[in-house]
């Protein structure tokens, strides 16, 4: 059993679990989660074996673990076209990604058991598609009844779907070509749709699911275009074939002034924008909070958005093709840098204004992803990968912690029976420190890591590297923006922790909240360990004191990846004299932000009181709370027009206008003529008026009856006609 075979086996257990649960154990809750967790465990085991053997292998980057099989031997011979292949490959990047993916996935699986109240009684009024609303336990003798959380009605379904999700992510990580990546990518898209809309009876959940699916689709189309372009240029979709074909890729593309590499890089990067929620397409991610919290952790930490950044790392050779460190960056990189930096700041500001504990985390995720993208944009490959890993750990931790908090609050809600209270609103919490100690400590560790508490936490090291890269590559704008974002990050983290845990309980629900089950807290603890320790493998040499002691394993490992196409160099962090400015900055912003956040919200006493910072910001605050009115903007700018297109254009103009207009123009004409003549023959005014009305009514009738069309074939005819027209235009205008 060689390592390659093991790699093939990694994604299979979750898939098997999915099939088993869907087909057989749909009714048996315990069996279902046993199968799912066992599958995740096997994948975890395999992943660990692979990871160990990967880090112990010499020169993994040059000759990675790889094996591939043909699945469609096709294409004109002679040309560069290779047969389509399905293959697996573990190079340093995929090894690292695999490491954190299997860990977080396993933790999330275990956590889900407790989150869905396994072992609790069936709910009184629960039905599939709604979150469990609690069950009443009546004690016969004591004549008392108490309300306890009830088990999720669609328990097995959840585990089936999330197993499929894990399968897709693992496929994406171990694959050696963009095509398989795309496959896993799309499966994940579907799973996120199904899981965000898991409680499909909630209209908001349905809407969020559709929104997430559609928004990511936009990106996926561009990704597909990028794949097609890549295949048509170098005739292969394999990672390893990108760099050898550099000169083919450096040729100018259909867009003047932009090389094929740049074009493909940009196209695929738009896919990344969609999947990991960068600036224009970020709107779906906060709404995705409608799903169960494990799903949020899955989507926003371990898998989906990480997949986006992972793909960004994979297309880095394309985006940077023909660029060597020190030179001005390429078009694609500029795009990355600015979109990333802007997103980082922009999302951070929104996060400050949110009161929903999960929404804050969602926006912070967006901003952290912006960090990584920006890092890639300035060429800090290793820093981006590093932050990807650390962020996966502490953001998973934070989400699971917030889920635990919400769980505790729901306990309180069940106790008081006040179902109008939103258990996710941080203003209703407070003082949970004493009631949920484990959650508090782990959440705090995660928060510290997120805000980059110096030296101990993982977030500090990765962020510091990014800032160093931005500073060192001399992009001051990016650097300043990222620093500001870091400040805000620390600020809203402090705000969150203060509002949630510190102070006194602001509601009676918060009074009665209590700690979650073991199955939920143990994963928190495990993840919190990583949230701290994951950073120590990446301490830069130049760091005063520690740098000499601890070797920078991560950089040596991932840094050996061959990425710079033209020069064929490897992905070292841009070598700069390690100046103390970025270091000082990151120290300053993290500590300062934390302090500010704590001070600002320390004395926030009563629930529903206006936000202390909000009072000062005033008008700008409302913008923040409403997320810059982005959804409204999109509704106005895109959804309306598309509806208009389908309704008015296809429907009224083409169908009613062109088709029926032609058929009925004649009839209408005669009708009018008849009415006209009769009116002038007839001198009687009343008569004429009545005739006019008659004609008018008849015409209106014919018109209105025709509006009720909507026949599929007529849409198809329209499509075909347009196809012919467009084809003719392209053929004669462009080609000829």
């Amino acid at each position, binding site marked *: 059993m060689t390592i390659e075979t093991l790699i093939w086996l990694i994604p299979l257990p979750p898939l098997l679990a999915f099939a088993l649960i869907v087909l057989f154990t749909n009714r048996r809750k315990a069996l279902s989660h046993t199968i799912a967790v066992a599958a995740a465990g096997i994948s975890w085991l395999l992943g660990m074996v692979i990871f160990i053997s990967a880090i112990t292998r010499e020169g993994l980057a040059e000759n990675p673990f790889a094996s591939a*099989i*043909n*699945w*469609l*031997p096709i294409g004109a011979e002679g040309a560069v076209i290779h047969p389509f292949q*399905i293959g697996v490959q573990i190079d340093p990047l995929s090894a690292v990604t695999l490491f954190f993916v299997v860990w977080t996935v396993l933790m999330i699986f275990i956590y889900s058991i407790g989150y869905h109240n396994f072992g609790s009684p069936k709910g009184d009024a629960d039905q599939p598609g709604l979150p469990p609303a609690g069950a009443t336990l009546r004690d016969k003798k004591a004549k008392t009844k108490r309300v306890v959380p009830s088990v999720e009605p669609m328990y097995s379904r959840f585990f089936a779907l999330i197993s499929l999700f894990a399968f897709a992510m693992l496929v994406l990580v171990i694959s050696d070509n963009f095509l398989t990546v795309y496959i896993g990518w799309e499966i994940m898209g579907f799973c996120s749709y199904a899981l965000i809309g898991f409680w499909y009876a909630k209209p908001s959940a349905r809407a969020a699911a559709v929104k997430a699916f559609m928004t990511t689709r936009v990106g996926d189309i561009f990704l597909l275009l990028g794949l097609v372009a890549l295949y048509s240029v170098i005739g292969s979709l394999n990672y390893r074939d990108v760099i050898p074909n550099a000169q083919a890729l450096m040729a100018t593309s259909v867009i003047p002034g932009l090389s094929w590499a740049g074009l493909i890089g940009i196209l695929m990067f738009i896919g990344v924008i969609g999947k990991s929620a960068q600036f224009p397409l970020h709107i779906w991610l906060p709404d995705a909070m409608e799903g169960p919290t494990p799903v949020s952790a899955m989507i926003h930490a371990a898998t989906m958005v990480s997949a986006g950044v992972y793909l960004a790392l994979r297309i880095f050779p394309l985006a940077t093709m023909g660029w060597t460190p020190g030179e001005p960056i390429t078009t694609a990189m500029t795009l990355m840098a600015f979109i990333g930096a802007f997103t980082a700041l922009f999302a951070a500001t929104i996060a400050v204004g949110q009161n929903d504990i999960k929404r804050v985390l969602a926006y912070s995720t967006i901003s952290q992803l912006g960090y990584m993208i920006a890092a890639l944009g300035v060429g800090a490959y290793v820093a981006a990968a590093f932050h990807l890993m650390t962020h996966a750990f502490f953001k998973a931790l934070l989400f699971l912690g917030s889920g635990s908090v919400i769980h505790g609050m729901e306990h309180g809600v069940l106790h008081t029976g006040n179902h109008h209270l939103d258990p996710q609103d941080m203003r209703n919490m407070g003082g949970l420190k004493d009631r949920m100690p484990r959650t508090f400590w782990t959440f705090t560790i995660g928060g510290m890591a997120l805000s980059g508490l110096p030296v101990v936490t993982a977030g500090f090291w990765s962020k510091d590297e990014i800032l160093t890269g931005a500073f060192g590559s001399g992009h001051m704008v990016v650097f300043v923006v990222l620093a500001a974002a870091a400040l805000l990050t620390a600020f809203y983290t402090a705000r969150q922790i203060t509002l949630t845990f510190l102070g006194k309980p602001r509601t009676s629900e918060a009074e009665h909240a209590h700690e979650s089950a073991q199955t939920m807290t143990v994963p928190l603890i495990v993840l919190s360990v990583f949230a701290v320790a994951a950073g120590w493998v990446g301490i830069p040499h130049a760091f005063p004191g520690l740098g000499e002691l601890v070797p920078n394993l991560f950089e040596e490992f991932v840094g050996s990846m061959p990425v710079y196409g033209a020069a064929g160099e490897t992905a070292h962090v841009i070598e700069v004299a390690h100046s103390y400015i970025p270091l000082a900055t990151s120290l300053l912003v993290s500590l300062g932000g934390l302090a500010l956040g704590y001070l600002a919200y320390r004395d926030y006493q009563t629930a529903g009181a206006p936000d202390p910072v909000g009072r000062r910001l005033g008008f700008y605050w409302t913008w923040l709370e409403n997320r810059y009115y982005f959804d409204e903007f999109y509704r106005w700018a895109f959804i309306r027009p598309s509806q208009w297109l389908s309704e008015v254009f296809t429907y009224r103009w083409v169908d009613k206008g*062109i*088709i*029926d207009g*032609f*058929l009925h123009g004649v009839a209408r004409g005669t009708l009018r003529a008849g009415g006209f003549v009769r009116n002038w023959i007839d001198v009687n005014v009343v008569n004429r008026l009545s005739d006019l009305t008659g004609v008018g009514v008849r015409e209106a009738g014919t018109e209105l009856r025709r509006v009720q069309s909507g*026949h599929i*074939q*007529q849409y198809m*005819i329209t499509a*075909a*006609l347009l*196809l*012919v*027209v467009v*084809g*003719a235009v392209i*053929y004669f205008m462009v080609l000829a």
Partner: protein
Amino acid sequence: MTPLQIVFLIVTVATLISAVMVVSARRMLHAALWLILSLLGIAVLFVTLETSFFAIVQVMVYVGAIAILIVFAVMLTRRDIQDRDKVTNRGAWAAALAALGVAGGLVGALTGWQAFASIRPELAADSAAEGTRIAQLGMALVSPDAYAIPFEVASVLLIGALIGAIYVAGERK
């Protein structure tokens, strides 16, 4: 004008005419019969291409299975034995326009292709090689480094279609 070409022309004309009848015949059953005729014509074209295997598979699959299914469906969904309602919908003229456009576009694009007229190799008249060719195809379809996966996917597709059809068309108890 070799005899083969004459045969080809006759067959294509017949096939096209019957295809036109398929889309314009009033009675669905007659349309189905015309469809069978045109499918047979295509089978003959395959014979002129010296792939008797596909010619016969064409007959087996289309005439033996699909056409029978269609006739079945026509019989099951008939109103009365001769359906009297209109053949085409209101957009027929636009549809004709679009179809003509597509045809014109395709033919135009084809004639625009410079290697177009030049390709006329002599087919190796090897009815003996036919058997070996079929054997090669069979091996390729099941050998894992050739087309095993598409083949399996196709079979899964068939199974799925089978189950789905049974589920959809089956009476709800």
